[in-house]
């Protein structure tokens, strides 16, 4: 392994490592615009120039592989001068409209200027005029004057999505990034170009002008949009919620996970968080009396529901009780449900799968047809009908129609996604007690007798298990809306009321109990899941092979 010296620190690195990567390993952050670890290396921006002894010219750190005995200076006079010069060049035609630029605060031009620039401008010429505020796709706005032509967005569309919408046109300082004539930046991953654009050239139509980024707090989490479970950061506005008209979650950004999504996420997932702050949220327990919804306190709701459940079980037995859990729930919600229904109530008709009638979009990159984040978890915890020799969802509905089912506890599902509207309506109308537990109202919740408010994925801690058997953590970013609670808390409370307490105080307690009881989870602990998740027993590392499409 080559040994090299960077700013007088000696380090031994793998052969083939570039100078910029080697420097990173010892905590030296060489500035960069065009270099992105997930894309090919083009060396166009020239901000990462460093001095390598015995080489006459400065070299770009992003492209230069280490060689044994190399001595690199990343911050001497000559390097600083070159960096200042590159910044000056980048800014001569830049509109300097930071006060109205949405990128301000997370702009690499601003940041590097503060760290490496700070020169007196000598530029007095007229700047080159280019297009501003040009919508180039459903999600992306382009300000060509702010573009520093790093080509990251172009390479993303060429190398990652292979959709080739973007190109660089013209020459000299009239060079301009644009979509090809007649094309739109409308691939299913277009939002990533906004993330990797180091400046305010590509901004997010959805997020634009919603809030200044310095008011945002970020909380690591996992996208619930499909069974891939892309790692994300939830950006939420805790400081000035009144500014956003009650919208607490401002945006989702992909979070690097080498084994899952690398640096990326899809647009469906990125913009799929709107229901978190939507008007359709169920914010308090409620019951339907003579067709009208009436709010209840949790105490009353639990009391009433417990009494009714008890009555039905006594009169009709456990066979008349159906439970439809959801792969939208966390492992914790599912496990608490399992204990509540199987142990406390001794019910066997438990299922979670409602096969969508419309097949979800899938590709060979990130997006999966299964639009649930925890199907694998639900299976492994043993919540399929076959596991419990109980009824499948379809059979439950059939039994309901035939008046054999007296109580149905439905979590999160909109049954219309799997069954015909009239079918659902007819079936549910024949069940004495329909309880719906979920985050948002839907056509199923409207058919229930009781609705219980669940906390959404940004309002609770917990874990999902992705398609490859990777258990990953979500974290509470904002408080549960209204009276909503994590699913596991609701089942714990119901269970206690019905005579069996569960000693769970935090999501971690539930997970650790699950890890003790369910084989696939044996040996895992909540404390050790870590930022990139852990694999269930019997699952091999999914990296390179399954993510083959990701590795450029």
């Amino acid at each position: 392994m080559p040994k090299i010296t960077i700013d007088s620190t000696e380090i031994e690195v793998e052969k083939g490592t570039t100078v910029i990567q080697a420097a990173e390993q010892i905590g030296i952050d060489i500035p960069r615009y065009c270099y992105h670890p997930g894309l090919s290396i083009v060396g166009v921006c020239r901000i990462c120039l460093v001095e390598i002894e015995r080489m006459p010219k400065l070299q770009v750190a992003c492209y230069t592989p280490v060689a044994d005995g190399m001595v690199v200076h990343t911050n001497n006079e000559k390097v600083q001068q070159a960096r200042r010069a590159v910044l000056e060049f980048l800014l001569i035609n830049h509109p300097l409209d930071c006060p109205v630029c949405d990128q301000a605060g997370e702009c690499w031009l601003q940041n590097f200027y503060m760290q490496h620039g700070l020169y007196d401008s000598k530029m007095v010429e007229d700047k080159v005029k280019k297009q501003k505020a040009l919508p180039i796709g459903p999600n992306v706005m382009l300000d060509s004057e702010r573009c520093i032509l790093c080509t990251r967005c172009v390479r993303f569309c060429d190398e990652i999505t292979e959709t080739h919408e973007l190109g660089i046109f013209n020459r000299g300082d009239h060079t301009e990034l644009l979509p090809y004539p007649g094309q739109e930046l409308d691939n299913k991953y277009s939002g990533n170009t906004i993330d990797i654009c180091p400046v305010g050239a590509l901004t997010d139509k959805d997020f634009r002008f919603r809030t200044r980024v310095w008011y945002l707090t970020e909380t690591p989490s996992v996208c619930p949009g499909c069974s891939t479970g892309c790692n994300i950061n939830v950006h939420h506005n805790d400081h000035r919620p009144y500014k956003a008209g009650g919208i607490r979650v401002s945006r989702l950004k992909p979070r690097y996970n080498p084994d899952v999504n690398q640096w990326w996420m899809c647009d469906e997932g990125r913009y799929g968080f709107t229901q978190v702050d939507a008007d359709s949220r169920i914010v308090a327990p409620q019951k339907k009396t003579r067709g009208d919804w009436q709010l209840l306190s949790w105490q009353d709701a639990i009391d009433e529901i417990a009494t009714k459940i008890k009555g039905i079980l006594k009169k009709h037995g456990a066979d008349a009780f159906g439970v439809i859990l959801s792969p939208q729930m966390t492992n914790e919600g599912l496990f608490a449900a399992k204990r509540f229904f199987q142990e406390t109530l001794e019910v066997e008709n438990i299922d979670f799968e409602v096969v969508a009638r419309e097949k979800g979009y899938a590709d060979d990159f990130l997006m999966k047809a299964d639009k649930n984040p925890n199907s694998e978890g639900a299976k492994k915890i043993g919540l399929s009908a076959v596991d419990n020799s109980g009824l499948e969802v379809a059979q439950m509905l059939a039994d309901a129609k035939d008046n054999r089912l007296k109580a149905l506890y439905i979590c999160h599902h909109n049954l219309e996604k799997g069954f015909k509207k009239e079918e659902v309506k007819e079936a549910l109308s024949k069940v004495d007690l329909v309880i719906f537990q979920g985050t948002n109202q839907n056509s199923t919740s409207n058919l229930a007798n009781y609705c219980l408010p669940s906390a959404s994925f940004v309002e609770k801690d917990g874990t999902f298990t992705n398609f490859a058997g990777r258990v990953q953590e979500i974290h509470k970013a904002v408080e549960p809306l209204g009276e909503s609670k994590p699913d596991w808390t609701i089942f714990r409370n119901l269970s206690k009321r019905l005579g069996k307490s569960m000693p769970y105080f935090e999501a971690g307690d539930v997970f650790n109990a699950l890890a003790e009881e369910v084989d696939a989870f044996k040996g895992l602990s909540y404390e050790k899941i870590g930022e990139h998740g852990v694999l269930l027993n019997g699952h091999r590392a999914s990296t390179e092979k399954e993510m083959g499409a990701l590795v450029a």
Partner: protein
Amino acid sequence: MSEKIISKFFDIEDSHTIEIYEKHGGYETIRKVLKQWTPEQIIEEVSNANLRGLGGAGFPAGRKWSFIPKDSPKPKYLVINADESEPGTFKDRYVIDHYTHGLFEGIMIASYAIGAHKAFIYIRGEYIRQTERLVEQIEAAYEKGYLGKGIFGSKFDLDLIVHRGAGAYICGEETALLESLEGKKGWPRMKPPFPAIEGAFHSPTIVNNVETLAYVPTIIKNGADSFANLGSERNGGLRLYSISGHVKNPGVYELPMGIPLREIIYEHAGGLENGNGIKAVIPGGSSSPILTPNEIDVNMDFDSLAAIGSMLGSAGIIVMDDSTCMVRALYVVTRFYHHESCGQCTPCREGTGWAEKVLKRILDGAGRPEDVDNLVEIADNIIGNTICPLGDAAALPIQSYVKKFREEFEYHVREGKCDVKGQ
């Protein structure tokens, strides 16, 4: 009259046809080569002839050919750079027009030497007549079995393809050329890998200038020494000097490597018009640092010009007499490089445009005292910091014009006008 190799065909009628070329001994060498020479022997002979790359960089041709990996399973390609766009350079056009089959014979020998069975001539888009000539003569060569399968009855196959550029100067830079040849935007590549390892279509490729290859048949025919001895040390043979500007007889002159610049200007190009004095001379295409009258005794070879801080480059000589405004001259050159900067890397893309604007402002009478140093600083910040040498090509004139004619720039800035007579 000194010896001529290529230019003796300039005055022969129909010298571009196979018949006339063969009448003057054409295609004898390749026939011999295919029968008697090994590729290694050819490379050695060309190396010993001190044939330098005549496209601009002057890299020894034989050495370049030796970089082609012997054990690579990939196809090898020869790419002939006929993009000729450096201002002041117009010699390759003459070669194509009058020494068409001499060029082809050079291509055949070089292809044989590097094991290429496909060669591409990448020709400047504006060279429409030359393109037609190439296409028509290539067809004629195919008809006679000089190109295609088993050329000249040997076991060696060679296809020759003409590819037209679309008007970008940068596509003369060999890696931008290869991108363009592959159908992409002409953006220079990062090196390494060098084309000899990974060039066209990810395969080992030699890029040579038209003129470089046109000298190859003569080298093989007459032997390395005879060619080397025509030139100076390490700079073998003759080369075609394009001379333009304020001289009586502009044109292309085939003269020895290392001949004094003064001799070319005064003896061959007839000196200046009206007996004017020289103010400045560009020795090797517009990117080469400019020379003052007291530097024109320099010998025109790669090493001698490098020694005085300039370059032989493409040997495109532009003579400027003392009626020339150096600020305007630099503006014209800078505008060209800005226009032709591919826009890929920051210092060249932004710096060339900035310098052009500053120069324009000075010419318009709105210069500021600090502009002169600022121009040099812009150039300093471009040099050595870019992906390809176009950045340097733009910056070197700025540095040298300002350094050598500083008073003129300062006068312009101070007085808001030019003090050169006739301007």
